[in-house]
C-alpha cells in the first residue's frame, strides 16, 4: 500500500509542478488562473497522499521528505505527468487525458476498502470533475477551432498518446483498483470529446511504460532538479 500511495502522490505532484510552470505565462489571465488552480488542487491531493504514505512508512518520513528527498528512480508517477508543457494545446490535452482517467480511478477508489485513500478520492473527485469539464471544453475549442489550433492538437496527440497505455496496465503493487477495467470507459469518453473536437483516436501506437516502476523519460530528472533544489542545497531549510 505504501508503493501504491506513493504512485498516486507522485503523479499528482509532478503534474502539479508541470502545470505550475504556466503561472504568469497563460494565454489570458482567466486561463492562467485556471491552470494554476488545477495545479493547486493536484498539489493538495499530492499532500494528502504523501501524508498518508508517511504514516504508513513511519519513522522520520514526512510529506516533505517524500516529495523533496527521493531520487528519480524512486518516483512512481505516470510518464504522461512529466511530459513537457509544449504549447497550450499540449498542456490541455495532457490534462484532459489524465483528468478523464483520474475521474474514473477516483470513482473506484472512493469505494475501495482502504479507508484513507477512499476519503481522499471522495474529496478530490469533486475537483477532478471541474478539471475534466474545463479541459474537455478546451480540447473541443482548439480541435474544432482554427486550422492552426487544429494542427497543434494533432501534434499534441502525436506527442502524448503513447503515454496513455501505461495508465491501464497495473504495476505489481497496484491491487486496490483494477485499472485495466477502466480502459473501455476512458476510451469511450475520450472518443466522444475527440469526435466533437474533429480529432481522431490514433490506431496501433506503441505504448511507453515504466513510470510506475521508476523508469522515467529524460524529463523527470529536470523537474526534480528544480523541485528539490532548495532542500538539496540547504537541507532542512524552513520558512
Amino acid at each position, binding site marked *: 500500500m505504501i508503493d501504491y500511495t506513493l504512485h498516486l502522490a507522485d503523479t499528482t505532484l509532478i503534474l502539479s509542478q508541470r502545470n505550475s510552470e504556466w503561472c504568469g505565462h497563460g494565454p489570458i489571465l*482567466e486561463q492562467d488562473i*485556471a491552470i494554476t488552480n488545477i495545479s493547486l488542487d493536484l498539489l*493538495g*491531493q499530492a*499532500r494528502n497522499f504523501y501524508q498518508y504514505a508517511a504514516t504508513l512508512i513511519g519513522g522520520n518520513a514526512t510529506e516533505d521528505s517524500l516529495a523533496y528527498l527521493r531520487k528519480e528512480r524512486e518516483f512512481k508517477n505516470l510518464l504522461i505527468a512529466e511530459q513537457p508543457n509544449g504549447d497550450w494545446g499540449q498542456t490541455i490535452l495532457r490534462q484532459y487525458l489524465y483528468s478523464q482517467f483520474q475521474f474514473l480511478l477516483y470513482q473506484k477508489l472512493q469505494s475501495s476498502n482502504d479507508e484513507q485513500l477512499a476519503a481522499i478520492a471522495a474529496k478530490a473527485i*469533486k475537483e477532478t470533475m471541474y478539471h475534466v*469539464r*474545463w479541459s474537455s*471544453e478546451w480540447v473541443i475549442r482548439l480541435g474544432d477551432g482554427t486550422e492552426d489550433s487544429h494542427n497543434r492538437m494533432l501534434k499534441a496527440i502525436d506527442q502524448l498518446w503513447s503515454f496513455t497505455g501505461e495508465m491501464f496496465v497495473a504495476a505489481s503493487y497496484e491491487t486496490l483498483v483494477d485499472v485495466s477495467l477502466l480502459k473501455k470507459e476512458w476510451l469511450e469518453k475520450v472518443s466522444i*470529446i475527440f469526435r466533437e473536437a474533429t480529432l481522431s483516436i490514433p490506431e496501433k501506437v506503441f505504448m511507453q511504460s515504466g513510470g510506475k516502476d521508476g523508469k522515467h523519460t529524460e524529463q523527470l530528472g529536470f523537474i526534480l532538479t528544480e523541485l528539490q533544489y532548495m532542500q538539496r542545497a540547504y537541507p532542512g531549510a524552513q520558512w
Partner: protein
Amino acid sequence: MKIETSSLTVKEKIWSILSEVTDPEVPVLTITDLGIVRDIKINDVGVEIIITPTYTGCPAMDMIAMNIRLALIENGFQNIKVTSVLSPVWTTDWMSEAGKQKLKEYGIAPPNPKQQVCNNDLFAPDEAVQCPHCNSYHTHRISEFGSTACKSLFQCNDCKEPFDYFKCH
C-alpha cells in the same frame, strides 16, 4: 487546565471562541459559518478540535489551524490539538445561512443550494447565479476558476460588475 466557566459548558465556550476565528482568504466568514469545524473533544490533557478542508489544496488550512490554536490559548486553554479529517467530505451545504448572507453582503455570490457541479455536461448552461450587487440573475460565467480554489468568476449582464461566486462543491 484552568478554564473560567460561567453558565456555559466548556464545549459551548469553545464553540463561541471558534465562531470568532475567520477564514484568512474570505475574512468575512468565520470557520463556523463555513462549517469546517467538525467536532470538539475534551479530555484530561486538553482539547482537540477536528476540522475539515474545503478544497484539498486550500492553502489557508495551516493558517486556520494556527489561528484556532492562538484563539484558544488567549482564552486560557492549553494542550490544543487541531486535527484535519477528510471524511465525511465537506460540501457547500455545510455553510450556514448566516454565512451565505455575509458572503453576499461582502460582494461574493454564495453557493447555490443545489450542487450543480454534478452536472458534468460540456458547455452546460451556466448556473443561475444571482449578482450580489444588483440581485439580477442575468449573469454569465467568465471562468470556472477564480481568485481562490473555492471560487469562480462571474459577470453581471445588467450592472456589468464582475464578481466572485463561491462555487458549489
